[in-house]
């Protein structure tokens, strides 16, 4: 079943951390677990480790597939594997589910040791900085002093940037794809509509829906449908779905008539069937809060002065959710700090989703950059 350039069957692992973790929002986690996967081999010098950070709905399952499910291909499998742009014959690649997640790491669905009940709405707010601090604990656990690279798309790119600020000595290269130095008001607005869909779902029960045997599926579905609209471009939606009628003509009903309706409902239902509503809320808030320049009076260049890593920044021409202009801000801020930075603006029609696709220019850029990383 596995493709010759696939890492093949992979087994998720869990690392347990007993030291309390102080969180930026004021809370403390007494201890926590992180689910992760690794691909390739850590070399003797421990210099070839690459951390892959996930975005809003991603997980530690980045590449390969799970033995019990042939359909479970990792979310960035087209990038990572033997002979792929992030080549596992050369690099030791790590995927991790972030703190507050719902794929095996400690999160709102986990049991709060203090109460014996699900954390639910009592799970503390976590930020990009907290995720990175937790990832650093995982690096310690795996014996990795310094990453050859930290890589991420969208919210994952924010984590890569934050790594260079929080642990400048522990990261040689940061690769931020379809990312931004902070969200715009419009972007926060989309997140807020998504959150309101969940928060006002009668099955949400103030975030303690687990005890009610309920799932705020309607809210999650709406949140996901809205998200998907913003991940695509007008052109790609027109090309993929156009105005195609499912019945060949209008039948005047509120059931699915247009193919785009079918797509959004399918994506929404699929997401709501497994994703945790509290994780969605926490993660969108982490996105909203991320703004390293805030403590520097909004001066991004000043905030990036402490990073010493080399950077690759990539954006996509049709991505209006994380537009190229936001990536360029990062590029100029780094350049004016005399940092090594390269920037590619990929011509790709698929909007924000482009970062998960395998556009030839995009993958050639990533391959070219990873290949030149000295181990």
């Amino acid at each position: 079943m596995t493709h010759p350039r696939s890492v093949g069957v992979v087994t998720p692992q869990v690392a347990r951390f007993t030291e309390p973790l102080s969180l930026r929002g004021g809370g403390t986690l007494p201890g926590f677990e992180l689910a992760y996967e690794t691909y390739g081999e850590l070399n003797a010098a421990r210099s070839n480790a690459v951390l892959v950070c996930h975005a809003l709905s991603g997980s530690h399952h980045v590449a390969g597939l799970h033995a019990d499910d042939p359909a479970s291909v990792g979310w960035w499998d087209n990038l990572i594997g033997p002979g792929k742009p992030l080549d596992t014959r050369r690099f030791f690649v790590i995927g991790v589910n972030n703190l507050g997640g719902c794929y095996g790491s400690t999160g709102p669905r986990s049991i709060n040791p203090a109460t014996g009940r699900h954390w639910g709405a009592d799970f503390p707010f976590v930020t990009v900085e907290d995720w990175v601090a937790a990832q650093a604990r995982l690096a310690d656990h795996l014996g990795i002093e310094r990453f050859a690279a930290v890589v991420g798309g969208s919210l994952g790119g924010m984590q890569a940037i934050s790594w260079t600020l929080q642990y400048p000595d522990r990261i040689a290269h940061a690769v931020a794809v379809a990312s931004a130095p902070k969200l715009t008001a419009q972007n926060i607005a989309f997140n807020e509509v998504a959150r309101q869909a969940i928060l006002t779902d009668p099955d949400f029960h103030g975030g303690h829906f687990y005890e009610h045997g309920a799932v705020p599926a309607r809210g999650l579905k709406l949140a996901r449908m809205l998200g998907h609209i913003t991940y695509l471009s007008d052109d790609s939606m027109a090309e993929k779905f156009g105005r195609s009628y499912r019945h060949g003509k209008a039948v005047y009903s509120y059931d699915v008539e247009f193919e785009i309706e079918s797509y959004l409902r399918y994506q929404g239902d699929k997401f709501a069937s497994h994703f945790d509503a509290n994780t969605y809320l926490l993660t969108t808030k982490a996105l909203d809060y991320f703004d390293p320049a805030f403590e520097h009076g909004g001066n991004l260049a000043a905030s990036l002065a402490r990073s010493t890593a080399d950077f690759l920044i990539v954006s996509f021409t049709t991505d209006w959710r994380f537009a190229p202009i936001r990536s360029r801000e990062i590029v100029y801020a780094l350049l004016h700090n005399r940092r090594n930075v390269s920037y590619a603006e990929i011509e790709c029609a698929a909007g924000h989703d482009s970062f998960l696709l395998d556009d030839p220019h995009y993958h050639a850029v990533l391959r070219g950059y990873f290949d030149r990383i000295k181990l």
Partner: protein
Amino acid sequence: MNTSYRYDYEVITGWITPGEKVLDLGCGDGSLLKHLMETRQVQGYGVENDPDNLVTSLANGINVIQMDLEKGLAGFEDGFFEHVIMSLSLQAIHNTQGILTEMLRVGREAVVSFPNFGYWRHRQSILNGRMPVSESLPHQWFNTPNVRFFTIADFDALCEINGIAVRERLAFDEGKLVVDEPNFLASVAVYRLGRHN
């Protein structure tokens, strides 16, 4: 940019002080910037808009930024670079005056090289009724990336009109230095430009 024009590189390298910040507009495969990093330890950045060139530049180990020079250099701070270089690309840009102004805004000096359309072989070709094709103008009229056709004399006049100081000018005939009558005898010119203060 064509890597066969090494004499253009050597002149430019001679004008760069070790450790400078350098911006190379239209950096092509990145070989000039790589040369400057190796011989002058510059903190260099290339600008390139062609996807294939961008990938080659990345492989060459230089910092390369994808952007369209026709849109100017708005993101760069005033005077950030010691030198802003444009090697054999000026003739391929529509916004000639705009980019020259921008180069001298973000750089203390600009270095520009371009093929001289007034070169005697080019004139001879026109006299014979055909558009010139030569080492410095390797394309046919129907597939050339060049959009501006100008001579050394034309460029001197443009600098004069725009208050650009020509600090140094070297001209070459297929690699050999030309001292007399460069507008007639030189195929390529390399300029070091500054602002009149």
